[in-house]
């Protein structure tokens, strides 16, 4: 340890300050969710649970929740299949263009979301694909694939290949080896990748606004359209409150799966 006493104290203060900054807006919204007033002025005017009932009775909210759950599920399944296949190919085989594939698989995440959004929208218009849940899923799957690929290839790089070789030596064919050796060893990597891509899909708005039709609304789209209408803000507060609580779930799950770093390390 080379840090002086003073340096440690300063670092502790700075860290505390950053954490306070990170939580301030979340706390503000939690307080507003119980605010009886329709007007969003500081400070909140009291305590009520009335808006929770109103949110539950709101058909748009419920429809948006269902759409978001469906989009997240289908996008995650697509991403799991495609991302795992590519990761195995890139890791186990050497072939022409391997480096290019690695670079290609960074693009959907590294290029700004607005670019992905407008590019997909242009394709859907040109090929006359109807906007709806399908186009939302396609949009989400393009970046979820990257999440799965990154998680799986990171796991593959850490694992020795000797069990696969042993399996082959003992007469296991490609499929048996995958089913009995590779897949179980990828288990937790696949699980945390699925978690991450579902959460990203559930939260996505930048690409989704381009790829959703007028009839299909996801939860972020509901919030975005309601923010501009002051009358609906109390319901938005409640939805926001629930979403803040829900963000603890994936962190807790990831912690259970394989330690804290999985939840954020492989974005």
């Amino acid at each position, binding site marked *: 340890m080379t840090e002086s006493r003073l340096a440690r104290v300063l*670092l502790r203060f700075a860290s505390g300050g950053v954490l306070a900054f990170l939580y301030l807006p979340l706390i503000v919204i939690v307080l507003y969710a119980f605010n009886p007033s329709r007007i969003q002025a500081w400070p909140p005017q009291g305590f009520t649970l009335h808006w929770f009932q109103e949110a539950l009775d709101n058909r748009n909210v419920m429809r948006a929740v269902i759409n978001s759950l469906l989009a997240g599920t289908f996008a995650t399944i697509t991403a799991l299949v495609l991302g795992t*296949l*590519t990761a195995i190919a890139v890791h186990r085989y050497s072939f022409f263009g391997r480096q290019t594939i690695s670079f290609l698989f960074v693009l959907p995440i590294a290029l700004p979301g607005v670019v992905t959004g407008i590019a997909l929208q242009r394709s859907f218009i040109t090929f006359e694909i109807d906007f709806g849940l399908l186009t939302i899923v396609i949009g989400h799957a393009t970046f979820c694939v990257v999440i799965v690929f990154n998680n799986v290839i990171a796991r593959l790089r850490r694992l020795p290949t000797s069990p696969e070789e042993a399996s082959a030596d003992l007469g296991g064919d490609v499929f048996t080896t*995958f089913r009995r050796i590779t897949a179980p060893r990828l288990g937790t990597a696949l699980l945390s990748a699925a978690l991450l891509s579902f959460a990203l899909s559930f939260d996505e708005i930048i690409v989704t606004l381009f790829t959703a039709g007028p009839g299909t609304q996801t939860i972020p789209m509901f919030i975005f359209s309601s923010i501009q209408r002051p009358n609906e803000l109390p319901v*938005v507060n409640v939805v926001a409150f629930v979403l803040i609580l829900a963000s603890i779930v994936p962190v807790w799950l990831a912690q259970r799966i394989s330690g804290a770093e999985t939840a954020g390390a492989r974005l």
Partner: protein
Amino acid sequence: MTAAATTSDPPRRPGLARRLAAWLFPRRRLQIGMLLATPLGWLAIVYLGSLALLLLSAFWAHDVRGVQPFVWSLDAFETLVGNPAYRAVALRTLVVAVAVTLTDAVLAFPIAYYMARVASPRVRNAMVIAVLVPLWAAYLVKVYAWRTILQGNGLLDAVLEPLGIGQPWQGLKEDANSWLVLSYLWLPYMILPLYAGLERIPSSLLEASSDLGGKARTTFRRVVLPLSFPALVAGSIFTFSLTLGDYITPDLVSDAKFIGNVIYDNSSLGSPPLAAAFSLVPITIMVVYLLVARRLGAFESL
């Protein structure tokens, strides 16, 4: 999980799967082909195909009847170059992206360093979780929260008014809002890679530096900073790219438009070729940024 595993069910029909496996065994190229066909088909056709089409559509004509696909024209580029308003938007977006990245680097360094090198394992674990929860909290919820804080009669007004500085503050009209909120949004994306990068530095190097007479400042400048630089660049890919591509935050917390706003506003109602042409700006910036980042070894720290 994969097509290979689900299409064959070895216990029931061992003969077929096994014969297929045996036939595939010497054919490495076919194995690669089968593995890559679907995902690459997906990414190449859906994603790269769309990008290519977007590029083409920047050269399409556009008149009162709407977009004329495959009728070529340079109008969109002439409008973009000729109108100084678009240059101002592009410059503003770029300046905010740089400012957000620098702000996040400065804010992230102390907490990442504290987590990686000072905190006990228990505290460290708790802090990782404490950084992860706001990261996973919904994006729009966070933007919306800032909107309620920044708007007139919000929390910020309530704090500033007694201090007598409420007057120059213009609530949601303030240009700096985007910078503040975007710095907030992407801060965890900078903290986590930086924390991982700092944790990887062997303590012995820091000890060696101080044994050789290096003061804390020298050790930081000559050992810690260079060794954590790839992690810093990795984090900056997120902060920079996410800022470049955002149009929701500028829309909700300020009046100042970003590149993304011009793209979104023109994507279906305005002039789609103009939107396509303008999107070449963030694409070009990001591709250059990524190539430089790969040079600097940032991809290993992602």
